[in-house]
C-alpha cells in the first residue's frame, strides 16, 4: 500500500506541474494578457501598457518568467491580482470551503436520490415507474443548469419565498444551488444503477439469497446494491470534474462565494493573474480528488495496489 501511495503521489505532483505549465504558456502565448486586460477599456497609452506589463511581471524573457512562476508557486505565491487588489492564491483558498460544501452536497444528493431512483426502476422493470424514472433521468441529463437555476429561483425564492435566492449561509441557502448542481450526476447515477442493478438481480447468488429465505430488503441492499454500486461509485469519481465545471455556472447564478464564481469573475474581468491562479487551483483540486478516489479503491480492492 505504501509503495502504491508513493507512486500515485509522484504522479499527482507531475500532473499538477503539467497543468500549471500548460496554462502558464497558453495564457501567455495564445494572446497577449495586457491587450486582453485593456480590451474593454478605451484609449490606453503605451506607457500604461508597459507599466502593466511590469506589474504582471510579463516584461522579462519567458524562461525567466517561467522559473520565477514555478519558484513562487512552490512557495504559495501565485501573484497579485490587479482587479481584486490582493494576492490571488489566498483569495482563492479562502473561497475553497464554499465550493467544497456545494460540490459535496451535490454529490450526496446524487448518491442518495440517484440510488433510490435507480433501484426502484430496476426492481420494477418495464413498468410505469421504470419508464417515468428513465424519462426523469434523461431530462436531468438534458436540462441546462443555468436555466434550471433561474426557474427554481423564480419559483422557490421569488414566488413562494421559501428559500433564499442567493448567497451562502445556513442550510436553506445550500438547497437550491446544490440541487441544481446535482441534476446531471443524479440522473447519471440513476441510469447506470438501473442497468447494473438489473444485471445483478438476475445473478444466481440473488436467487440463492432468496432461496435461503432472506427478507427481500436484505437481498436487494446487501446482495444486490453492494455489487451493483461499484460501477456507480467509479462514475461518481469521474463526475467530480464535471461538478467542478458546473460549479462555475451554479455559483455564478446563485452568487455563491466559491472558487467557481471567482474564476468566472476573473475571466470576465480579464484578470490574468487570477485566471492563472484559478487554473492551477482547479488542476490541484482535480488531482487531489483523483488521488483520494484511487486510494479508496486500493483500500477496497487489494488487487489494485499490487497491480
Amino acid at each position: 500500500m505504501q509503495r502504491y501511495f508513493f507512486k500515485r503521489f509522484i504522479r499527482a505532483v507531475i500532473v499538477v506541474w503539467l497543468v500549471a505549465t500548460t496554462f502558464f504558456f497558453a495564457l501567455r502565448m495564445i494572446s497577449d494578457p495586457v491587450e486582453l486586460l485593456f480590451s474593454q477599456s478605451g484609449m490606453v497609452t503605451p506607457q500604461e501598457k508597459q507599466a502593466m506589463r511590469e506589474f504582471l511581471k510579463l516584461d522579462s524573457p519567458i524562461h525567466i518568467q517561467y522559473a520565477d512562476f514555478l519558484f513562487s508557486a512552490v512557495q504559495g505565491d501565485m501573484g497579485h491580482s490587479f482587479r481584486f487588489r490582493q494576492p490571488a492564491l489566498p483569495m482563492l483558498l479562502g473561497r475553497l470551503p464554499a465550493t467544497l460544501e456545494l460540490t459535496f452536497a451535490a454529490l450526496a444528493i446524487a448518491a442518495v436520490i440517484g440510488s433510490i431512483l435507480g433501484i426502484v426502476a430496476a426492481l420494477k422493470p418495464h413498468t410505469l415507474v421504470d419508464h417515468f424514472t428513465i424519462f426523469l433521468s434523461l431530462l436531468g441529463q438534458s436540462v441546462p443548469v443555468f436555466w434550471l437555476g433561474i426557474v427554481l429561483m423564480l419559483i422557490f425564492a421569488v414566488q413562494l419565498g421559501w428559500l433564499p435566492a442567493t448567497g451562502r449561509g445556513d442550510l436553506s441557502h445550500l438547497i437550491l444551488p446544490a440541487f441544481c448542481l446535482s441534476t446531471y450526476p443524479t440522473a447519471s447515477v440513476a441510469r447506470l444503477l438501473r442497468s447494473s442493478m438489473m444485471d445483478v438481480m438476475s445473478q444466481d447468488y440473488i436467487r440463492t439469497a432468496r432461496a435461503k429465505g432472506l427478507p427481500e430488503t436484505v437481498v436487494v441492499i446487501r446482495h444486490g446494491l453492494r455489487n451493483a454500486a461499484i460501477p456507480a461509485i467509479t462514475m461518481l469519481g469521474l463526475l467530480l470534474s464535471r461538478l467542478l465545471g458546473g460549479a462555475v455556472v451554479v455559483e455564478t447564478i446563485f452568487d455563491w462565494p466559491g472558487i467557481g464564481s471567482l474564476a468566472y469573475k476573473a475571466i470576465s474581468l480579464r484578470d490574468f493573474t487570477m485566471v492563472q491562479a484559478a487554473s492551477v487551483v482547479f488542476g490541484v483540486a482535480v488531482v487531489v480528488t483523483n488521488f483520494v478516489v484511487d486510494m479508496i479503491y486500493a483500500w477496497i480492492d487489494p488487487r489494485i495496489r499490487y497491480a
Partner: protein
Amino acid sequence: MSRGGEPSPDMRREPSGLSNRLPRLLRSPGALFGVPVVLLVVMAALFAQYVSPHDPFQQDLSLRLQPPFWEEGGEWSRPLGTDQFGRCLFSRIILGGRASIIVGVSAVLLSALIGIPVGLVAGYSRGRVDEVIMAIADVQYSFPFLFLALVLSYLLGPSLHNTVLALGFAGWVTYARVTRGEVLSIRERDYILAARAIGCSAARTVVRHVLPQVVTPLIVVGTLQTAWMIVVEASLSYLGMGVQPPTPSWGNILAEGRLHMLNSWWYATFPGIAITITVLGLNMMGDWLRDVLDPRSRLRSQ
C-alpha cells in the same frame, strides 16, 4: 471489452439482424421523439428566414416585453411574446437554434478531426507513444471542461467562431479515448494480421482496415457530444463568453431574459425549453443510434 468469442446469452436470445429488431426500434422513444425533434430543430435552423414570422433583429419599442399569445396583451403573430427591444422572441429563438446547431456540429467535427487520428496512432502503436498520449488525455479529461472552455474563449475572444474553436480544442479527448479503445481490440483480429501479412503499410492498415470499424461507435459518441456541446455553448453565451448579442443564441437570450424574469417570465423560459428539448432529443437519438448501429455495445458497457 473483447468483442469476439462466445456470444453472450442475450445475443442468442435476440436475433441480431437489423431487420428483426427494426419494428421494435421504430417504436422506441428515440425514434418517436428523439429523431423527429432533432430533424425539426435542424430544419428550423436551416430555413430560419422562412420559418420565422418576423425579422429577429427588428426592434419596435412600442411592443417591448409583450407576453405570449395566450396571455392578456399577447398576439398570434408573435406567439412567444417579445423581448426588451420588442423583437419577436419566437423568431429569435429559431435563429438562436442556428447558432447552437452550428456550434454543436462544428465543435464535434473539429474535436473528432483532432481526436480520431490521435486515438488511432495511440491505439495502433501502443507502447511509449500510447502511454504519453493517454497520460495527457487523462489529465485533460479530468480537468473541468466548462472551465477549460471559458479560459479558451477568454484567450481567443468571445464570438461564434471562437466558441467553435474553444469547444473543438477542448473536446478532442473523448474521441481519442473512444477511438483508442476500439482500435486496441480491432488490431488483434485476424484480418488485420492478414492485411499486414500481404504487405499493407501501417498507415494503410489503419486507414483502410481499422478506421471503418471505428466509425460506428464514433457516430453514437458524436451525437451525444453534440448535445453536450450545445449545453456548453449555451452556458458560455449565457455567461457572456460565447456568441455575442445582437446575434441571438439560446444562451444569450436567456441571459437577457434573466434581467426581466420578475415581470416577463416568458423571456428566459422559452429559450431554456428550446435547449432542454433539443438536448433531450439529441441524447435520445444518440441512445437510439447505439441500439440501431451497435447493439453489442449495450452488452459490452454493462
